[in-house]
């Protein structure tokens, strides 16, 4: 079984690359390979100019890693953790650096409690702080905000933005299109271990457009509504019979909510609800893989 194959990526210095994909797409395996935790069977990579396979020690000197599997020591306090990492990174004044980071990530009050007593959000912030005791050239963030409260997420996002202004390159994996949109200069969509699509967030949005969905009261008019959607979007509509809903992806920027409602009204479809929103990752994903298969066919 290969979790990653044909994964080609180039990330420019000082930019954020968002690796976007559903669970099981191979994102974590890719990060584990690129951070020297796993050895690749084949292929090559350069991190901050160092060959991944031949110079793993040089790679480790250039990187910081925060992921759900690479964790700080729960038996140590937050302060003890950061001091230890600062010392191992040969930072001058490890105690001062630890204090600085604790303040910056809102952990000063909990600094002298064992990290095992921290909430999920605090723990993740401590994890990130531990990767930043010495500013890394390349920072790997593996799903840094999965399961975080909005306040912690904002803190993490701000920290990432600040790092890139100082020239750090960030590779971020995420399941959230919104997160990639907020942070990434470039997005790589991965599926089954390979890159399915790359582009800027703007290109992605233009490419995938929006998701239109209408809900009707009478199941008999559902097919009629789907016909209207088909005409407007040119995309295959998907049904949710239980909710009496039908939806489709559109790339037509002139398709607005009022126009959608007018068209459906003209076709004699009584509406309960209509919405036009950015698509979820799953919808993007289905759409792009469908396109890919179409091109191949």
């Amino acid at each position, binding site marked *: 079984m290969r979790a990653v194959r044909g994964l080609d990526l180039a990330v420019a210095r000082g930019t954020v690359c968002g690796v976007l994909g559903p669970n099981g797409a191979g994102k974590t395996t890719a990060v584990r390979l690129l951070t020297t*935790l*796993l*050895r690749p069977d084949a292929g090559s990579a350069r991190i901050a100019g160092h060959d991944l396979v031949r110079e793993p020690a040089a790679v*480790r000197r250039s990187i910081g890693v925060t992921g759900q599997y690479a*964790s700080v*020591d729960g*038996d140590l306090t937050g302060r003890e953790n950061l001091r230890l990492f600062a010392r191992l990174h040969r930072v001058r004044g490890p105690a001062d650096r630890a204090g600085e980071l604790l303040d910056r990530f809102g952990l000063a009050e909990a600094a002298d409690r064992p990290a095992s007593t921290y909430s999920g959000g605090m723990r993740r912030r401590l994890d990130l702080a531990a990767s930043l005791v010495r500013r890394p050239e390349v920072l790997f963030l593996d799903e840094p905000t999965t399961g975080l409260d909005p306040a912690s997420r904002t803190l993490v996002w701000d920290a990432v933005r600040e790092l890139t202004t100082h020239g750090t390159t960030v590779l971020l994996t995420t399941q959230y299109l919104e997160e990639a949109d907020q942070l990434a200069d470039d997005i790589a969509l991965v599926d089954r271990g390979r890159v399915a699509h790359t582009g800027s967030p703007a290109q992605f949005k233009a490419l995938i457009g929006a998701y239109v969905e209408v809900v009707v009261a009478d199941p008999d008019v559902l097919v009629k509504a789907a016909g209207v959607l088909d005409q407007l979007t040119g995309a295959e509509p998907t049904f949710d019979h239980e909710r009496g809903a039908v939806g489709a992806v559109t790339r037509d920027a002139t398709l607005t909510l009022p126009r959608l409602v007018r068209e459906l009204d003209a076709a004699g479809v009584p509406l309960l609800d209509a919405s036009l929103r950015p698509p979820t990752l799953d919808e993007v994903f289905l759409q792009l893989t469908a396109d890919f298969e179409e091109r191949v066919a």
Partner: protein
Amino acid sequence: MSVLAYEGTALLGRQLRRMRNNPGLLILTQTMPISMLLFFGYVFGSALAMPGGEYRSFLVPGLLVATAANGIMTGMFQAAQDVHRGVTDRFRTLPISRAAVPLGQALADVVVTAVGTVPFLLVGYAVGWRIEGGALEAVGAVGLLMLFRFATTWVGIFLGLLTRSEEAAGQLGGATFMLPLLSNAYIPTDGLPGWLRTVAEWNPISAVTTALRDLFGNAPVPEGAAWPVAHPVAGSLVWCAVLIAVFLPLAVRRYAHGKR
């Protein structure tokens, strides 16, 4: 080398803080030998041919070595816990020597064992154990004990990195409790049937226990024993050298490569 010393010391400090913040395992491993000394010394001691006082003097070195052999359990548990919690992977992404983390763990374990030896020997003194030989020999005995602990800890670290699960480490660790039962730590081996005696005397615990009894002057080297017991100091040093030469490189390799 100085790099490894610096990093090893930092990680030794980490292990000591870890034990201070979470003293459960520490309390268990430190109080266990004391309660065993009192239990075995008075309950079993009353049923043995040896006079009770003499048996407790015999038992103190045996329990010291049996406790040192628990380095397998402690080493395994801590290494597996670190893997399980992702701490090992975090350290593996750091620009530090591949030997620093396991070395720090092994050294911290020896330090804690050395400190734990003090209350145990005080209780031993209270129940009649004495240093009956020279002071230099007694220092040698403690040194040998620490070397043995250092060796067993590496066995444990390797097994912990191999099993990667705290539960498996706990279960396997329980099995290490059996090891001293098949040695001369608690009983003299000369009463055992021939083949069983051979097995018991080739148990590294027996060589180290005999060396300690000899160096503390508690009991003479038994006659007609297998080579490691008949030459207990040399036998102990060879056993420790073999264990370290095999398990230290295995553990460091395992640590460096992670899971395959």
